[in-house]
């Protein structure tokens, strides 16, 4: 009995090389497809894209100069002629300031996460894959930073370093490295225990190759999803730092700072004073929802 008959399949008579291989759509294609079917996540994604576009093209979109004030036009209500969203305490156009504010707010809120993602993944994957003493060294250090509540750590670091955009960015990044590293480590440890890693090791592959081919593809996804959920935290925290006066300095438009300076106006123009908070809120919700959508899209069970 021939081999093929025994197996009950009909292989092509001679081994077909190349040519006719039908490649299945990859995992990420599936994730994107599932994500695209999630109306809530898609709406949120559109909101984020719009916010980003708004920030990038702020100078072209904003109807007025965000730093040009007029004392005669201070604290005008929403809908005041020429000031669709009112005017702030120095008579600057709120709409323009909110649009321009998106630049620093998003920069401060979003960038720490990708940077921390790179650093945290690097640390976590190394610790998780290498294990042993390396793991202990890296993870115990990470634990130390993780032992600080995030707000406290951010405030402590910016407080010690002093106010300013760069310092705030550094602090926020440092805040997010430990949690990402922990997730990366646990996912990697988990993946490392799977048989296909053992199979790869059994084939004689070196650690570098295994990490590149077998580990990264399987751990970056979950780490990424976790990281996206941090963006919203980062937004709130970044604006919080500015709100405390530890982030961006005046007169740069930034939502947290605007919220701070407009606080004196909550009695005269509560609606206008609340606007920067609304922007932070919207951005934060949008990121959370995209993150949730991504999480369920990546869940193969669904």
């Amino acid at each position, binding site marked *: 009995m021939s*081999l*093929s008959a*025994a*197996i*009950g*399949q*009909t*292989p*092509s008579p001679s*081994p*077909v*090389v*190349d*040519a*006719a*291989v*039908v*490649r*299945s759509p*990859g*995992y990420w294609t599936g994730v994107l497809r599932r994500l695209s079917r999630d109306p809530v996540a898609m709406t949120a994604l559109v909101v984020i894209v719009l916010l980003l576009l708004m920030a990038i093209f702020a100078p072209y979109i904003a109807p007025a100069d965000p730093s040009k004030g007029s004392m005669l036009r201070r604290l005008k209500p929403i809908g005041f002629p020429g000031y669709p969203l009112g005017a702030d305490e120095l008579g600057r156009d709120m709409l323009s300031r909110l649009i321009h504010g998106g630049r620093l707010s998003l920069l401060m809120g979003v960038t720490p996460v990708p940077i921390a993602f790179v650093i945290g993944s690097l640390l976590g994957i190394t610790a998780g894959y290498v294990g042993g003493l390396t793991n202990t060294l890296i993870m115990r250090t990470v634990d130390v930073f993780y032992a600080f509540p995030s707000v406290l750590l951010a405030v402590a670091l910016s407080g010690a370093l002093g106010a300013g955009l760069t310092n705030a960015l550094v602090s926020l990044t440092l805040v997010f490295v430990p949690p990402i590293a922990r997730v990366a480590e646990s996912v990697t440890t988990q993946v490392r225990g*799977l*048989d*296909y890693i*053992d*199979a*790869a*090791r*059994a*084939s*004689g*592959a*070196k650690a570098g*190759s295994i990490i590149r*081919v*077998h580990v990264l*593809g*399987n751990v970056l996804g979950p780490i990424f999803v976790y990281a996206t959920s941090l963006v919203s935290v980062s937004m709130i925290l970044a604006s919080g730092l500015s709100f405390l006066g530890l982030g961006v300095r005046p007169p740069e438009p930034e939502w947290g700072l605007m919220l701070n300076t407009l606080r004196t106006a909550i009695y005269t123009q509560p609606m206008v004073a609340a606007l920067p908070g609304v922007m932070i809120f919207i951005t934060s919700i949008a990121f959370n929802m995209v993150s949730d959508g991504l999480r369920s899209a990546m869940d*193969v069970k669904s």
Partner: protein
Amino acid sequence: MIIGEPAHLPDGPDRGGPAQPLLSVRDLVKHFPVKGKGLFGKGAVVRAVDGVSFDIRKGETLGVVGESGCGKSTTARLLMHLIKADSGEMVFDGEKVGADLDLTAYRRQVQMVFQDSYASLNPRLTIEESIAYGPQVHGVSAAKARAKAHDLLARVGLEPGRFAGRYPHELSGGQRQRINIARALALEPRLVILDEAVSALDKSVEAQVLNLLQDLKDEFGLTYVFISHDLNVVKFIVDRVMVMYLGKVAEIGEGPAVFGAPRHPYTAALLASMPKMDPDARSAEAPLTGDPPNPINPPSGCRFHTRCALAEPVCSVQEPPLAAMEGLQEAACLMALPGSGHSRAPAPVEAAA
């Protein structure tokens, strides 16, 4: 070698000829520290593999059976050098592994197929990539590795054109297990360790895969270590069988001999525990009572004495060594050891030397 272009991977030299064991294992020990136990210094350990010695002969299929947790998989992983043994040595075709023979070269000649067909495939790689990975690691060009993968897919009965580009989750369990076999073969190994490679498969598929394994063995002159807890399958496929109990070898010998005339009471009980296929001769009484003991605190003396119907006081004191018997069968039972003090032990024979 038939697969691919033979020039790519040099064959491991067959050194000692058929008489020399392909792999000789001596006193392999592996203890796992128990998580969460112990505060200072050494804590409790799981004696997963506790001094195991055996030979794998060239071209044979060695079966390993035993209850869950008796150390079968641990032995397999030790053989594969996926975990480091606490002690013991392994000699591969005359060369000491790790000393004369470096790990990379060793691993090329020894491959493994795992029980969980899904977990042993990288879900993010197409199956063609998974199979081609091994050869590429050993320096084969991507194109040639791919060709080889297609070749192997055909050999294990999966049409390359249809399957090469798929992902593991798009295949059935049986198909995945074939991929795993193909991957193991991609490095043209001499020894393949099959750790419960068919246990998770449905019966109808199991038969297909068993046939495939036999065919491949003949074609490529492979040597198998076949781990399973299904005695029926083991009986069918192996030349020799090793029975393990709590990290120790209980009995080892030619298949028909062991199955026909087990010398260790545990082997006998295991065999008797198999469901009968005859509705008119159902089991009447369970051969053993109770569950296997905890490998963290294995019983003293003979580890089986707590469940053994024939145990005598001496069994809880003296640990039986593997005693050779006629027909190359060996059993670690005091009843097989002349002069052990067990009432059923054969009388001591004066050493004729």
